[in-house]
């Protein structure tokens, strides 16, 4: 018998919390992005856990789509970051607090 699903859910909750706190604490935009990826991975772990415990392939399909959307999100987000930092030299979120370029 393998590990119960609750252990995976608690682990995913811990990872999600670490990602959320990191998103709130860190000022570097790139590290904030990595914390978002951490939260997405925690959600993926939850999906796979429920997929197994409910005996349903739909959770794994959801993880597949989350992976695709995360890849697209990272591409667009990093493009925006590069476009911002071409004009401003700082690397923190406080340096980009105005919408006007």
């Amino acid at each position, binding site marked *: 018998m393998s*590990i119960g699903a609750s252990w995976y859910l608690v682990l995913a909750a811990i990872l999600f919390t670490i990602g959320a706190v990191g998103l709130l604490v860190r000022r570097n935009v790139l590290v904030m992005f990595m914390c978002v990826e951490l939260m997405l991975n925690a959600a993926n772990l939850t999906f796979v856990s429920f997929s197994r415990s409910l005996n349903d392939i739909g959770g794994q399909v959801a993880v597949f789509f989350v992976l695709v959307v995360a890849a697209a999100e990272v591409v667009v987000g990093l493009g925006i970051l590069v476009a911002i930092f071409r004009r401003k030299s700082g690397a923190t979120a406080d340096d980009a607090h105005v919408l006007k370029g």
Partner: protein
Amino acid sequence: MPHGLVLAAATLPDALTFAIAAAVSIIGAFGVVLSRNPVHAALMLVMTLFGIAVLFVEENAQFLAAVQIIVYAGAIVVLFLFVIMLLGVDRREQIFAGGLVGQRVVAVILGVLVLVEVILLAHHRWVTGAHSVAGSLSSSSSNVAQLGRSIFTTYLLPFEVTSALLVVAVIGAIVLSRRPRRRQGEVGIAEPVVDPDGLGLPGDAGPEGAVAGTGAPDGVRVVSPPEEVGAR
């Protein structure tokens, strides 16, 4: 409680694998948040992703584990590292400086609240009991076959919409990273003084003569012909 916190009933290799992968994931997650250098944060993110991939294998999601390694660790983190190097922000920074007053205390309190809430929820019955909407996991075919059949039958329309999303993302990335044409007399804020289009900067009289900046196509430096020394 159908999904209780039962670790004692698990076999020893399963329990050991879960414990090691969970420890690796959590250490990597703390490393992402706490490392001062963004490059180290990206490498710690790889560690977390690898731990989660091991957990995917443990939960019989082999295809997702492979995709996790290939897409996340192989593409996304490399993209992060690429942008870190491109922007030149790979230097140490102060984590606990700047920001709003009391921001970090509030952030940690909020995080603990979220954790407590989710763990309390995980102790209770929260599923409706509906099973196998898209397909059962317990059939005899492999994980990849099940996932592929589900994607190309039940979830075919979302899968096709995903391709549109990827095309939009590619076009958006190209548009965002295109260097905008600088108008006459406009100077970038923090941009180093470079000559992006080869037309010469104001006061840039090169040794090879005057620069004609009007009427020339981009990237073409029109140079006055040198004096024909000794032409007969």
